[in-house]
């Protein structure tokens, strides 16, 4: 009986040949690139749509719907030359009209998009015009280097959406794009199925079908991987690596993620406004131990707020080493006195903090517990407060000044452009993502000037200086850059070189054995 059942159960080869099966951890919300705010939706949409430019494996910009582009007028004018003979999935030709429609819709205040201000410079909208069907001219009020990276915004079809309500149109669940795959079916909370677009401008995909299975629970996704029901599983727990690699059809690849984790200091806190105290706290923690204990070695210690893979990463940074003795002398220097009870005091106030951690992730609470021990050993008291994610967000990104937290543990995932305005510019406090309240005039100037030049070497120098200054000021205790562990079924061929962009950068070359 068991044989019989399993005989008809096993994935039959006719069903899975030329079919790539991926896992989504959550139901996509909407398949319109302008409205997307979740990773599940963007994973699907990125296969259906194309932008003017895209990123390669090394996160460099390469042509997509545009064949090339020219920057002129001191960086205030970008001209994109569009690829010819590209058609939408319904056969309609793709032209500059679609590009204009996309960006005009993005700039329309009625569109429920959170990307609108990406296409504004100092409160003024960027102008998009089309001298002919295959040229798009972007005119800026002033030079704005990060814009080029934002031109990867996926283009939506004007002929399908003109005059419709972009927020609610049926298109959002039955999209038409110019990407390698075209939309087929979406069964809510079950799967999204895409089929190959034979007319894809990057070459006809070798796969026939791309299937996104929605499996929220990690352990169940792991079972599906082992069983052969999905081909790729991202974010495998390092503890599961032996269990996965024991199965002959599976292999594991690891690669750097484009993000860093940190503990933010609320700089408005009377203790934490003193840089000596912050430095003492950084010296107190052995972050190599955290990489081992929390990431099981899959990551490296961070010292600056940018990924080491970026061209804007400053090579010469003096790391703040693990040195508890220096912590003690710094605290003494800051005017603190260690009392009989083992804690440090100043003006009768104990050096004690509460760290906010989101309940959702596993890493946050673990990090907090390890730091609690390190801080205790140098006489700093740390209380851990776990919060539900939305409650956590409300505390740190609410409009209050000062904000109701001392320390918080978070990660920033970065955009490939190093522009650090939203996190480090002083104008982004109290409303904005500079919730620690960081303010350094020199850094403000550098961040502003980094937006004005397009030359990468010049920009690199600017950001090297900015990030070094930020690292010196220690507004964060930088923790680490994690690496992703991804399990892959060996039946797949044509995967791209593992990197922060994932394994499917050249999806049209991917196939099954």
């Amino acid at each position: 009986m068991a044989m019989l059942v399993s005989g008809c159960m096993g994935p039959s080869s006719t069903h899975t040949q030329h079919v790539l099966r991926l896992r989504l951890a959550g139901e996509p919300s909407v398949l319109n690139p302008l409205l997307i705010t979740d990773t599940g939706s963007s994973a699907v949409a990125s296969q259906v749509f194309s932008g003017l430019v895209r990123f390669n494996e090394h996160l460099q910009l390469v042509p997509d719907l545009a064949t090339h582009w020219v920057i002129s007028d001191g960086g205030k004018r970008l001209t994109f030359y569009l690829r010819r003979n590209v058609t939408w999935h319904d056969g309609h030709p793709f032209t500059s009209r679609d590009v204009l429609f996309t960006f005009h819709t993005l700039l329309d205040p009625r569109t429920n998009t959170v990307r609108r201000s990406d296409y504004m410079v100092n409160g003024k909208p960027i102008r998009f015009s089309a001298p002919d069907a295959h040229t798009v001219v972007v005119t800026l009020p002033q030079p704005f280097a990060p814009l080029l990276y934002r031109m990867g915004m996926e283009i939506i079809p004007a002929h399908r959406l003109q005059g419709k309500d972009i927020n609610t149109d049926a298109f959002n669940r039955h999209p038409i794009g110019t990407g390698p795959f075209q939309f087929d079916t979406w069964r809510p909370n079950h799967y999204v199925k895409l089929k190959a677009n034979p007319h894809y401008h990057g070459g006809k995909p070798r796969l026939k079908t791309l299937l996104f299975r929605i499996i929220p629970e990690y352990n169940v996704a792991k079972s599906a991987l082992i069983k052969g029901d999905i081909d790729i599983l991202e974010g495998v727990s390092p503890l599961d690596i032996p269990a996965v690699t024991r199965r002959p059809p599976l292999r594991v690849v690891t690669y750097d993620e484009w993000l860093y984790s940190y503990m933010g200091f609320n700089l408005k806190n009377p203790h934490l406004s003193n840089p000596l105290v912050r430095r003492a706290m950084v010296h107190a923690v052995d972050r190599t131990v955290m990489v081992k204990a929390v990431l099981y070695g899959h990551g490296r210690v961070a010292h600056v707020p940018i990924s080491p893979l970026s061209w804007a990463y400053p090579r010469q940074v003096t790391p703040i080493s693990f040195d508890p003795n220096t912590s003690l002398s710094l605290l003494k220097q800051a005017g603190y006195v260690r009392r009989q009870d083992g804690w440090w005091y100043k003006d009768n106030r104990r050096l004690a903090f509460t760290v906010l951690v989101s309940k959702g992730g596993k890493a946050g609470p673990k990090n907090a517990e390890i730091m609690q021990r390190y801080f205790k050993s140098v006489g700093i008291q740390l209380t851990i407060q776990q919060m539900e994610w939305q409650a956590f967000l409300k505390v740190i990104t609410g409009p209050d000044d000062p904000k109701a937290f001392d320390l918080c543990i978070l990660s920033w995932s970065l955009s490939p452009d190093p522009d650090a305005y939203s996190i480090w510019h002083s104008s982004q406090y109290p409303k904005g993502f500079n919730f620690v309240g960081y303010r350094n005039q020199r850094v403000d100037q550098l961040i502003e000037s980094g937006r004005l030049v397009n030359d990468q070497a010049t920009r690199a120098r600017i950001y090297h200086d900015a990030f070094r200054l930020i690292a010196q000021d220690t507004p964060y205790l930088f923790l680490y850059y994690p690496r992703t562990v991804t399990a892959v079924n060996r039946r797949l061929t044509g995967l791209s070189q593992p990197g922060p962009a994932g394994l499917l950068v050249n999806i049209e070359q991917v196939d099954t054995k």
Partner: protein
Amino acid sequence: MIRRVIQRLVSGIGALLVTIVLSFFLIHLAPGDPVTTFIDPGMSVADIERVKQNLGLDRPLYEQLWRWGGQLLQGNWGVSTTSHQPVTTVLADRVLPTLLLTCSTLGCILILTLILGVVSAYWAGSWVDRGIALVTTVGLAIPSFWLGIVLIGWVSVRWNLLPASGYADPMLPVGSWEWTGSIAQHLALPLLTGTLGGLAMLTRYYRHGIRKEMGSLYLLAAQARGLPRHRVLAHALKNASLPLVTLLGMELPGLLAGSYMIESVFAWPGLGQLGVNAAFSRDYPVLMGILMVSTLLIVVGNALSDWLGQWVDPRVRRSS
């Protein structure tokens, strides 16, 4: 009779209204909103506020309730803030899988508990009885979440007998026989998980009810008249199952709540999974929709079981 039906209807609608208004405020009291479910350094605060305004989330709570209620009276349940679909469509997509899972679980529980209850009452005190008590209690004590994952690990991964998760093989043509069979295969494990968790209570009720009836004077008389034991049991069973009609109505909310967990574990595309997602992303219109449907089901379930109780038991009818 008609008066009683009207009374029932009025109290049902009252319960529905109170639940709706209370949960509307409760849901909105939780910190956060549908726009700020994540933070991304690429997003601007101005954009977030503009989208909130577009969605009417910047308005006072009573005004939002007023507007939402007004739309509801016109048959408009609102639009999901995450998928931008009408709530009625979102719910309709998920109702069938949930009903399939809940009803089949309920069916299995009813049949199995009847058998187990009779067996353990008949051989009360024996090792069979104790075995049944042990198994059903363990089933009750094990969290369905964990049981589900263990079952997947053994039945699906190790022995490769059943699919691990999902609803049907996505590569099969929808509506075909193969597809229907695939749904049945996918249903097996969540059904088993839900059933194992729900056996204990009803089995105990059956066992206790039958034992109590067996000790009653009329059955003692029947036994004295020489009626065979299985005939006596049949009489006892009939009267013992009376309270179960009421219990059934009470099981319904539990089953619905339980399906939230089970659906999440087995990636079953029903209301439960939708509810969990909607709660995390603060999708107020969808949450309210689910709450209304669940409340309605529970109110109707209770009314039905009351009515059934009256129908089978004349004493209830007279006393009310």
